[in-house]
């Protein structure tokens, strides 16, 4: 393993991470809800009474973030290296997988680990391992 020190951004990572932690804590303490993006969006696809407004508000805030960021600074470049076909396959897997597994990086990774939930730890280890393995296969076995 070699560390790419030129790409390493420890302070913005910690500060951005802390912001995510504040946001998740705010939703838990204020609304009594888990800030799991896949769960919040998934719930909008099957609307139930009293369950839609807070989800729409949260997603609205998420969508407003780049616009709010632009008021202060230029948006950082977002680099997409995947082909359209890969984007579609990846999106389908992420959508189906997060609903089957009841969570994603935010719900299991941030909120679940913060709650010290063994179930979320198992989920997080599973998707991290699959993520590492997939990049290894794509970059070093197929692409290498």
């Amino acid at each position: 393993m070699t560390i790419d020190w030129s790409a390493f951004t420890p302070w913005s990572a910690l500060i951005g991470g802390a912001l995510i932690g504040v946001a998740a804590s705010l939703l838990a303490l204020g609304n009594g809800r888990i800030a799991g993006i896949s769960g919040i969006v998934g719930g909008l696809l099957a609307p139930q009474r009293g369950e839609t407004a807070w989800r729409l508000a949260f997603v609205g805030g998420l969508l407003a973030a780049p616009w709010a960021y632009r008021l202060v600074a230029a948006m950082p470049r977002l680099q997409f290296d995947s082909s359209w076909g890969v984007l579609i396959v990846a999106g389908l897997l992420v959508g189906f997988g997060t609903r089957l597994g009841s969570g994603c990086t935010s719900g299991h990774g941030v909120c679940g680990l913060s709650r010290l939930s063994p179930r979320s730890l198992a989920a997080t280890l599973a998707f991290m391992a699959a993520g590492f393995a997939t990049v290894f296969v794509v970059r070093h076995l197929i692409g290498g």
Partner: protein
Amino acid sequence: MLKLNALLAGLLFGLGLIVSGMANPAKVTGFLDLAGAWDPSLALVMAGAIGVGLAGFGLAKRRTVSLLGAPMQLPASTVIDRKLLAGSLLFGIGWGLAGICPGPALVAFSAGAPQALVFVLAMLAGMALHRITAGRR
């Protein structure tokens, strides 16, 4: 108040994704590429988020009603079953393929990235597919 709080939480969450670099797929795959030139940044994103979250959820777990008077609805399930693991594995494969998970997908879509629009539509289709197949079981 509940809607306003959810809006604020979503906004801060999105800003955190942008500031931390999570909204950039190349940054995510740089972290997932252990065998290449590894960028450890995202480990610190998780550390920062969980560091703050431990305090927030530590307080939240002790309450039965939220600070704004809503019932606390934190998950109670502790079951680690095949659905949880299979779903997480499928999600991880998709995450590794494109470097995008649901939150960053929505943020990048709103930032105007056409790739994120395609990803979000596919993701919604995947969620709908799960709903259809889960209903049949």
